């Protein structure tokens, strides 16, 4: 029934291509109902609020997401407890409104952007640290707690979660769970968020509260809120290490950089953090005086965890040069900012995130380097080791969105890179709205499991539509459009000459 409503809305879109306002008479009553649940203070239908709660760091130009349909939420509700969520869900069902759960909105790819209006559910206000159990080494939290606050609370007990995303300054724990938490700072050493999550409390779209444990937890990591709303999580914690030690090396050769990275990843002593970047990206945060690529690796500063001789041997074999303590420490300090820094110098930082087996990283990067040359795109890249076997690779292009053709062509190149990544056994890192088209090709098994789960958990399709299991457009359509765009881009160079 709900799907019919979506289809009708889509038909309307085709004729007007403008977001359809909800009829005034219904709007008043929905607003009143929501106010009754959470009070006047925590619900808004103001356009300003809806604009803000419908975006994320994708930083795409407005014209780019017109196709999203009704891309503004109808209402924004800040919930503080499970009962409120339950009541809001009832209203959503009653009026066939989608629910879009939203955390820190520091992820990207439109993960918490509406496609058919609906209610943006701000979870940041559910931010309690419910229990810290030092004896059994776990913490129970609400989804809106920030990494900073969780870290501070755990630190008082001499504990740490040990893992956090590079957007930890603004991200919240529930958001990272929904996005998967596959690769972050600390994950190569402590394991991914999946390995830390022992239990989740989830509010189903029908308003029933359910505890999720064991293998079912897999469904909710990378679920982007399409199955239900995570209202509580139990996570493993660790003792705080005594300190950290970082080493940065520069390389002149891409292949040697990648081999060094792989060998370090495979050492018995695992790093907390390992990143690679080209000098183009590096110049916006911690510029190198020599070398074309940088590798920064951080360990727990204790003899049992520091592979000093191994590092010396690897970097010696592959011509890596130590960049000094000052550079290394600065690179560690900049771990939250390094991916964002280039944005300061461009209107649109076009990027795509890949999850790659580490032995395929070289092939990906050398291919992107070729595109940099052949298509004259202002490319830059960054990679962060997620597990000892996989890396989150971020390929970027600094584009002025006003140059439409260049913008689309750069997107086209990133699309080609995604096809290559899938061929090589990788896929998109963040799925969200924009990368759902790749699900069938990159993660077919996961897609079919998620479709089954969606039918079970959210049969009416209320929860965050058009993410993961559904898609507003087809892969073939996008593939063809990008093929045309890149061809035009190449052609325009010759015509220009």
């Amino acid at each position, binding site marked *: 029934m709900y799907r019919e409503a979506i289809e009708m809305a889509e038909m309307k879109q085709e004729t007007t291509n403008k977001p359809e306002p909800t009829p005034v008479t219904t709007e008043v009553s929905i607003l009143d109902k929501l106010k009754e649940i959470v009070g006047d203070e925590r619900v808004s239908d103001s356009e300003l609020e809806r604009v*803000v709660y419908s975006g994320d760091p994708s930083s795409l130009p407005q014209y780019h997401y017109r196709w999203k349909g009704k891309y503004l939420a109808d209402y924004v509700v800040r919930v503080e407890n499970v009962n409120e969520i339950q009541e809001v869900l009832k209203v959503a069902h009653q009026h066939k409104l989608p629910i879009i759960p939203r955390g820190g909105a520091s992820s990207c790819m439109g993960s918490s952007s509406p496609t058919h209006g609906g209610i943006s559910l701000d979870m940041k206000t559910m931010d309690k640290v419910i229990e810290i159990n030092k004896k059994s080494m776990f913490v129970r939290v609400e989804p809106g707690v920030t990494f900073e606050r969780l870290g501070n609370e755990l630190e008082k007990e001499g504990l740490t979660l040990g893992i956090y995303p590079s957007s930890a300054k603004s991200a919240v724990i529930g958001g990272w769970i929904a996005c998967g938490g596959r690769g972050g700072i600390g994950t190569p050493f402590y394991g991914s968020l999946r390995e830390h999550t022992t239990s989740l409390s989830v509010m189903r779209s029908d308003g029933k509260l359910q505890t999720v444990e064991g293998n079912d937890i897999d469904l909710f990591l990378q679920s982007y809120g399409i199955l239900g709303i995570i209202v509580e999580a139990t996570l493993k914690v660790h003792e705080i290490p005594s300190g950290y030690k970082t080493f940065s090396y520069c390389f002149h050769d891409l292949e040697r950089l990648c081999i060094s990275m792989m060998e370090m990843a495979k050492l018995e002593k695992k790093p907390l953090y390992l990143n690679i970047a080209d000098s183009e990206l590096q110049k916006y945060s911690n510029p190198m005086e020599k070398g074309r690529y940088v590798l920064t690796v951080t360990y727990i500063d204790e003899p049992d965890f520091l592979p000093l001789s191994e590092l010396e041997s690897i970097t010696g074999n592959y011509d890596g040069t130590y960049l000094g303590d000052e550079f290394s420490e600065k690179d560690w300090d900049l771990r939250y900012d390094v991916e964002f820094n280039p944005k300061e110098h461009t209107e649109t930082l076009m990027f795509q995130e890949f999850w790659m087996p580490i032995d395929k990283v070289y092939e990906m990067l050398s291919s992107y380097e070729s595109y940099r040359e052949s298509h004259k795109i202002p490319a830059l890249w960054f990679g962060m080791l997620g597990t000892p076997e996989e890396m989150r690779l971020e390929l970027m292009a600094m584009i002025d969105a006003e140059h439409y053709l260049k913008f689309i062509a750069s997107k086209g190149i990133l699309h080609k890179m995604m096809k290559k990544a899938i061929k090589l056994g990788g896929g998109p890192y963040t799925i969200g709205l924009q990368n759902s088209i790749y699900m069938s090709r990159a993660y077919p098994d996961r897609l079919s499991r998620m479709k089954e789960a969606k039918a079970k958990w959210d049969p009416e399709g209320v929860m965050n539509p058009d993410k993961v299991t559904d898609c507003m457009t087809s892969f073939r359509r996008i593939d063809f459009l990008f093929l045309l765009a890149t061809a035009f881009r190449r052609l325009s160079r010759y015509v220009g000459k």
Partner: protein
Amino acid sequence: MTKMDFLERYAQENEPYVCASCGNCTLVCPVFRSLKWESYGPRGKLHIMKSIIEGDGEFGQDFANKIFLCTLCEHCTSVCTTGISLDRFWEVTRAEARQRGLLPRPAQFVLDSLESRGDIMWMGSADRLLWMEGIEEIVTDRILKHADVAYFLGCNVSLKSQLHDVARSMIKIMEYAGVDYTLLGEKEVCCGAPLGWAGKLEGINEMAERNLELIRSLGVKTVVFSCPSCIQTWSEYKRHLKEENDLELLTASQFISRLIREGRLKFEEQPMVTVTYHDPCISARVLKATEEPREVIEDIPGVYNVEMMPSRKSTRCCGAHGLLDVVDPVLSSRIAEMRLRDATVTPATRIITECPRCILAFDLAKFTTGYDITVQDITQIVAESLLPKKEEDKKSAEG
């Protein structure tokens, strides 16, 4: 596309596009922490501004009001991953609001007061002498006297009776140290900062110049301030102050610290006072004056500083900066209460700071929360801890 005259004039039109939407600014913003709606946080406002520029939204009264619900505390600027000078952006956006006739009424009142009275409170030049009550004999001869050092009180310290003791304490310190100082007295006018906060950027230089002209004519080399915002304004709008005027601008603690290093201030032992130093936003994040006040406190025997969290450049705003205290006094007070709580979880019995707005904000928050804690300017604790002159002479003779 919507044309933004001021954004273009002050080269700020690209800033909404430079924003990476990372959200770092949101969580540190005192207004967002209080109101919890994204449209009040820096990221949200930039997002809205982008949609207005692109013609998808209107610069209406609703948005203008949100732009004024900001303390201009620079916390967002300090954590911005893409290095946007957000404080500057908010001031220029306020100018856009003023140009469109969307200035909130309290901000308009401040503007009118500045233009007609030269201060922010619709008082007058004669009222700038009220703080001298009881010490006229000492200070009357100092007014507009040629001297190396000028003490610039600013509107709050001159005109608000709760803060008169701050000025009197500074006089006591300077007299004690034998400083050759001057005062502008009733000729002092506002530094110009509130003009920027009320969206009239073009009037700031003129206002600052009225003071600077006098200061130059008195042969002054160093200006000491009780308010960090005055220094910020003169530094930013008179960029070549040092080169053109050979003037040094110091916060009270920077000046006092220098006097201590020169051996011109001596303290007597205090009976175990535990204080916590609250870094005013502008002192910490703009002037980077975070160590001098701590050094001064450390130099007073018997006074111990315990840090409140967060502090130094991560300090939280008191809520009274950037005209928020006049535009929305309730919100301003709520923010002050949040900061006061940071102090009350320490064992300190006094908050020391060096900004008149912070003192006023905490005094109000004490009232609304019922917390009992003394709030003082750094000059006050220094002045009351000075070793009485006779004893100092005796000690010198013995030494």
